[in-house]
């Protein structure tokens, strides 16, 4: 399953890129499972374990508690805490 990962805010610098495409063999069923699958595949992937990050799939926010239904070519955005205004 191919996923496009996007990184926003300070996280972008922590993982050293704005976006990347990765292939996962397993289909994670939750955000925590997805993060654990991605950590070893990314340089500085531990940055994804920051509990303050928000996650959006195809431009829709997801919570850690919900069941994921990931599909091939989904876009997964990891967002650092916001600081607008």
């Amino acid at each position, binding site marked *: 399953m191919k996923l496009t990962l996007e990184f926003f805010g300070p996280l972008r610098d922590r993982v050293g890129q704005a976006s990347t495409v990765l292939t996962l063999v397993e289909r994670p069923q939750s955000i925590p499972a997805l993060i654990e699958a991605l950590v070893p595949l990314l340089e500085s992937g531990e940055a994804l374990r920051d509990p303050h990050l928000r996650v959006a799939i195809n431009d829709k926010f997801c919570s850690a508690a919900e069941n994921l239904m990931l599909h091939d070519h989904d876009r997964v955005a990891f967002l650092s805490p*916001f600081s607008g205004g």
Partner: protein
Amino acid sequence: MMTRSDIVLTGECLDIEALNRRFQFGMGSGAISTFTGLVRSSDALTALELLHHRVLTPAALQRIAKAAMNRFGVADLLIAHRYGRMAVGEPIVHIAGAAPHRRAALDCVSYAIDVLKTQAPFWKREWRGDKYDWVEPTPDDHEKAATWMETGS
């Protein structure tokens, strides 16, 4: 009561007078409150850069506007937010709310800016020459947003 929320998200410099002329409010309005946030000069700052998310940011601004209007019974609310690189003194955000009475207009605008700071997907970088530092939300930012959540008023 007819309600109007107007969201402006732009990479152009905010023209506050033009935004105030653009702001539409009904004849039942007895008060208008506005807030403008500016890039503050500090510690050799050369520019402030705001980054956003193409889809999630406008959706969040719309959601915050609707929540603010419902909560305070405000009929008309404008939220204008800048993204991109800004010089010291330039406006970052402008909010205007119109309500039958002053308290609702003031609280609505206050709520919108407090909640926007931690709930709208923006990220700030402070530039000093060719180096930048990310601006993380402060405990005070979270506290102010949380206060509105706790009080429910």
